């Protein structure tokens, strides 16, 4: 299931004198089963954009089309939009703060229940989702508030997974995580992608973009200024100091400047660079 974004405008505080234009004429299309990263500075409109995808925010002008759902100002009050949220799951930043039930399984089953799945069936969905995020049966009956921050976040993500959306949006999923938990979480996200879900990740982490994203959207002050592959992005932003280009990419670029014949677009992780250097050395004897 894809998303079509057509000339989107959104303004915060329309009536107030200090209104800010958060989205300014943004258009693009997301295809089925893509892994997309949305990057940009704080306040560039990333989260705003993501929130229009499941109609939490209604654009002032322009429209978002997801499957048969059309989100625009005209049908902002449509009851159908709730059904859209079954297809587009949004995992907010620090989702661990949305838990409220007394047991983990009940909290995860809350989503499916809201979309009309009955008790037993919803619990089954919850158990499946919990298994996917790596929480076993011993967690089912525990209280969410006695878990650690990382476990709570996993429960919250399972809460979205249990709804079984086709498109999952993650807003800064790894913020505040230690490197190994972050890696676990990213592997999890990649596994969803492999199961055929469309993944959209909002992030500041360029390493994440380099390793996993198939396509990157760069937002600057509410405008879409770049849409393409990660390596093309790193080329594009070379002298744009607000985005941190990953070390490996920087090294590769420097090597290429000095005359090494390496394809920057082939580099996704550090192993790739080693391979490329070895290939290049073999070629040059």
């Amino acid at each position, binding site marked *: 299931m894809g998303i079509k974004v057509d000339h989107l405008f959104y303004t915060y*505080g*329309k*009536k*107030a004198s200090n209104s800010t234009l958060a989205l300014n004429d943004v258009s693009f299309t997301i295809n089925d089963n893509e892994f997309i990263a949305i990057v940009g500075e704080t306040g560039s409109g990333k989260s705003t954009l993501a*929130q229009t995808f*499941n109609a*939490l925010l209604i654009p002032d002008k322009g429209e978002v089309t997801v499957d048969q759902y059309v989100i625009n100002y005209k049908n902002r009050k449509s*009851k159908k939009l*709730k059904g859209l*949220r*079954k297809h587009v*799951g*949004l*995992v*907010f930043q620090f*989702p661990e*703060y*949305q*838990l*409220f039930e007394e047991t983990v399984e009940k909290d995860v089953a*809350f*989503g499916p*229940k*809201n*979309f009309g799945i009955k008790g037993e069936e919803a619990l089954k969905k919850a158990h499946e989702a919990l298994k996917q995020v790596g929480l076993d049966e011993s967690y089912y009956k525990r209280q969410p*508030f006695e878990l650690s921050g990382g476990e709570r976040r996993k429960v919250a993500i399972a*809460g*979205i997974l249990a*709804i079984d959306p086709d498109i999952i949006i993650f807003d800064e999923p790894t913020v505040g995580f230690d490197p190994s938990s972050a890696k676990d979480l990213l592997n999890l996200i990649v596994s969803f992608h492999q199961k055929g879900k469309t993944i959209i990740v909002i992030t500041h982490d360029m390493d994440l973009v380099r390793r996993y994203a198939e396509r990157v959207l760069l937002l600057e002050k509410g405008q879409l200024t770049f849409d393409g592959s990660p390596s093309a992005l790193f080329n594009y932003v070379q002298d744009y100091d607000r985005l941190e280009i990953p070390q490996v990419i920087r090294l590769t670029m420097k090597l290429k400047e000095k005359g090494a014949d390496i394809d920057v677009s082939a580099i996704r992780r550090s192993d790739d660079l080693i391979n490329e250097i070895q290939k290049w050395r073999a070629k040059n004897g």
Partner: protein
Amino acid sequence: MASMTFGRYTFRDTFVHRLDARNKIFLMILFMVGIFFQFHMWSTALVLSGLYFIILLIVMIVSKVNFLSLFRSLSGMWMFIIILMAIYIFIPNNNYYLPTAFNIGSLEVKWDAFCQSAYIILRLILMIALTMVLTSTTKPMDMTYAFEWYLSPIKLIKPWRYFAHEIAMTLSIALRFIPTLLDETERIMKAQASRGVDFNHGGVFKRFGAVIALIIPLFVSALERSEELANAMIVRGYDPRANRTRYRLLRFSWRDAIAFIFIVGIFAGIIFLFVIDTKENPLDIINIIFGVKGF
């Protein structure tokens, strides 16, 4: 949230803004008490209400308070007005001064019912407007300082010496965190909406469930936040029992004296009228001013 503009402090340099917060609170309470004196003649109540409105209008113009936001906050009151009218029409009362307006079956509806509810609504509007003038011309911090000052007699009781300061500190923190918690509410509402909660449609039970899903996370985060804040304060050496000086001082100036004399004078006048107004010999302002018998 943009909808919370009602009565929010807006910086302006006016006579009312410069008044001492302690004075402002005192005078506001005095004015409100004055508004709630009941008179026997409708014409007297009407004339005095008009007078209050004129005073309020002057205060609002002087303090440059936004009129529009007052009307916006009143637009939610129509339900209240209907209920009030129904109560006065259907619940019998033997103090009628005015003729019958119309009959519903065997029930006589007196004009008093309408006057009575209109009078209450007028006074409520006055109260709301007064509070709005106070909150939009006084910094929340000054308000808590004033509150602390009013609680200061408690300091004389030894075990409660620090009570006033602690209450004021708690209040100021509570005020400071209102916008933060509003943001938090919006965030959690959106997160739960992503999980299929519909806050705007559905029956009572569904909505109740939706509110639970909002309130519990909100409490959890507020409690966690308070703990963090307490720790941060302790780490920086905050001690509620320390003797402290203050950066901002509340001062009683000539402006305060003028405002004080003005409002207290009006209050004294109202008390005078109230005292000479008796059931046997009700005060008739219309008669005094225009020489025409009032009602």
